[in-house]
């Protein structure tokens, strides 16, 4: 057996730090060089046909025709050769050219006598004969940004965001008279509502993520945004909890704020969707959509005020009474983003932005579910009652059910 080197052995001469840091980088470059020179890739690629990947942006229509952006998210340059509209080749213009470099974007314009309120099937034919569909579900003139349109979208945002949340909060005076177990039930209902929002945000976000060009890795973007939001909220909550260590750790007011914030992020996503739907000419569905979202979001108001009930009812460590201004603030925080969302969706809809917002909403909703769940659990522990009572379960299911059923109204 050889002796293990003793810790007191003389240190060997060491590489300078800068070299030690650079060494892997140099080695990496050498590996790339060897790989490229060795022709490994070309041998792999030689007989494989090119796979093209184009993503088409929102179609802008005016009286004389329409135009849209085409993004090349594939591995190589793509040349747009022809365009068909409803199975007919049609003259088109490209700016700056029909050649789309990798990660490049061009704008395509067609003069076309389109028919109002009818769908159009547009296909791009590339030089390799592959085709890519451009969706125009209902042809109508794209609204031009203007003061009137701005006001209109803002109003829609108010109707689907602020109004229902505020209406829901009007139940607060009634709710505060509830007995303890019924307050628990309201919290369970809130939990149900939040779980529905979580699932809904997840599916919307994935859908939006899949629509992004492959290079942007939409699903990763979405999940990472959710993860970051969740961790940030976790850090905030933890530091707060550390600060006032004595139980009850989480103040009802703080939790209400958190719920309002996460619901706000979710409503931003909804606003984006509504604004974009109007802008894309699905305005025919618009009225129904607005009613639907208003009904749908009323439950959210109940959810926001639910944590505040605890302080009035059971907690001897009563916090500062919550004033009217605070309620208005909560309503704005939860509903206001719908207005912003409607503006962004209506005038500058970007699927990337949409996916990011939905990711943020997902992370926030997740954190809020954890917090409301914890609150319910603490209340149960302190009273020695079970966490899942039949009443709580029924309320939870009611929360999910009401959201699910009212969501019927907003499925386009």
């Amino acid at each position, binding site marked *: 057996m050889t002796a293990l080197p003793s810790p007191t052995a003389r240190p060997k001469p060491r590489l300078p730090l800068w070299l030690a840091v650079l060494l892997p980088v140099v080695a990496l470059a050498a590996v790339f060089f060897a790989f490229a020179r060795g022709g490994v890739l070309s041998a792999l690629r030689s007989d494989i*046909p090119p796979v093209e990947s184009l993503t088409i942006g929102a179609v802008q229509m*005016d009286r*004389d025709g329409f135009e849209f952006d085409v993004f090349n998210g594939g591995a190589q340059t793509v*040349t747009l*050769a*022809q*365009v*068909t509209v409803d*199975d*007919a*080749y*049609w*003259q*088109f*213009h*490209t*700016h700056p*050219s*029909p*050649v789309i470099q990798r990660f490049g974007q061009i704008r395509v314009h067609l*003069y076309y*006598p389109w028919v109002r309120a009818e769908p159009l099937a547009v296909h791009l*034919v*590339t*030089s*390799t*004969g*592959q*085709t890519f569909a451009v969706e125009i579900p209902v042809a109508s003139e794209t609204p031009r940004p203007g003061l009137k349109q701005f006001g209109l979208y803002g109003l829609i945002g108010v109707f689907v965001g602020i109004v229902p949340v505020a209406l829901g909060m009007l139940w607060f005076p009634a709710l505060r008279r509830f007995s303890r177990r019924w307050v628990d039930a309201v919290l369970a209902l809130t939990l149900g509502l939040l779980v529905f929002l979580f699932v809904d945000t997840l599916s919307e976000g994935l859908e939006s993520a899949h629509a992004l060009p492959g290079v942007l890795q939409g699903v990763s973007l979405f999940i990472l945004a959710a993860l970051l939001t969740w961790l940030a909220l976790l850090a905030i909550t933890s530091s707060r909890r550390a600060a006032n260590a004595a139980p009850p750790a989480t103040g009802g007011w703080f939790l209400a704020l958190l719920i309002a914030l996460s619901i706000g992020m979710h409503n931003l996503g909804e606003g984006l969707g509504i604004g974009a739907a109007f802008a894309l000419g699905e305005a025919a569905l618009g009225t129904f959509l607005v009613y639907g979202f208003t009904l749908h979001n009323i439950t959210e108001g109940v959810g926001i005020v639910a944590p505040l009930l605890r302080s009035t009812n059971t907690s001897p460590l009563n916090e500062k009474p919550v004033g009217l201004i605070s309620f208005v603030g909560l309503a704005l925080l939860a509903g206001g983003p719908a207005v912003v969302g409607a503006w962004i969706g209506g005038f500058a809809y970007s699927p990337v932005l949409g996916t990011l917002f939905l990711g943020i909403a997902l992370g926030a909703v997740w954190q809020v579910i954890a917090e409301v769940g914890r609150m319910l659990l603490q209340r149960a522990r302190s009273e020695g009652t079970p966490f899942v009572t039949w009443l709580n379960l029924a309320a939870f299911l009611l929360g999910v059910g009401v959201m699910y059923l009212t969501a019927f109204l907003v499925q386009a």
Partner: protein
Amino acid sequence: MALAAAAPAGPRSPQPDSPTPPPSDSLHEGHGDDSGTVGDVDLIAFDPSTFATTFDGGKVTALGGGRSLREWEVVALNKDIEVAPGVVFPAWTFNGQVPGPTFRARQGDQLRFRFTNGSSHAHTIHFHGIHPPSMDGVDPIIEPGAEFIYEFEARPFGLHLYHCHVMPLKRHIHKGLYGAFIIDPPGGRTPARELVMVMNAFDTNFDSENEVYAVNTVAFHYARHPIQVKVGERVRVYLVNITEFDLVNSFHLHASMFRLYRTGTNLEQFELTDIVTMGQGERHVLEFTLEHPGRFMFHAHQSEFAELGWMGMFEATPEESA
């Protein structure tokens, strides 16, 4: 390759990137004489105008008694072809072109096709007409690098076709292995301006639906380059339908009527009409004279096919202006 950047042909097309909207009179339905496509194909590689008037009688050796021996060399080759401006299709071809050469003989001639398969897949040449089953191009299958001699007597007179008959048949046909095969009657036909038109289509994204329709391969070629004829001149069209995936295709002539000789096997006209609808493999001889100067449109009367490339023009000029 003529990949027109942004400037379409056509007088009524607005300028690219023009800052002002087009004048309101440009709000026309459709696009008049323009083709829907932008730009033109590389006509050096394949010019449908030349193809339409090229007939390949093979290497002729007199056999006596008015009969001839005709010999051809046919090679199957993989080749990328341009089926619409800028749209490249990975075709399988006879002699490097789609449609393959228009073979032409006289009834009773002895025909000899020396077929070499220079492509990556097994192929055959299956001729329509009367011949022994051993010469039918179904069995044997000619593997890549192999060779086979198809030899038979030309009969009956009429307009026939040939195509590869290897499974999967749809793929072997729509990839481009077909052509027209004309057998003239013993006494010949009346002299005329003769044109071959093979109605074909291309499924460029391989979803079993065609993206491009044409006569003689190139979408809108004869709209961009009208076929020049004389007023009063007898025009004879050898019309073959080899369109894959769609049940029927058709030929419709504007502002005139044509005499229809079904399959070209009878010298008596079948009817006078301006439209004929054909299933895959059907072929007819059409004869007409244009009585007025000007442009005469012709196209499939399946509007979809017409707007996806199967549309062209005859341009008749007065006799004296020649």
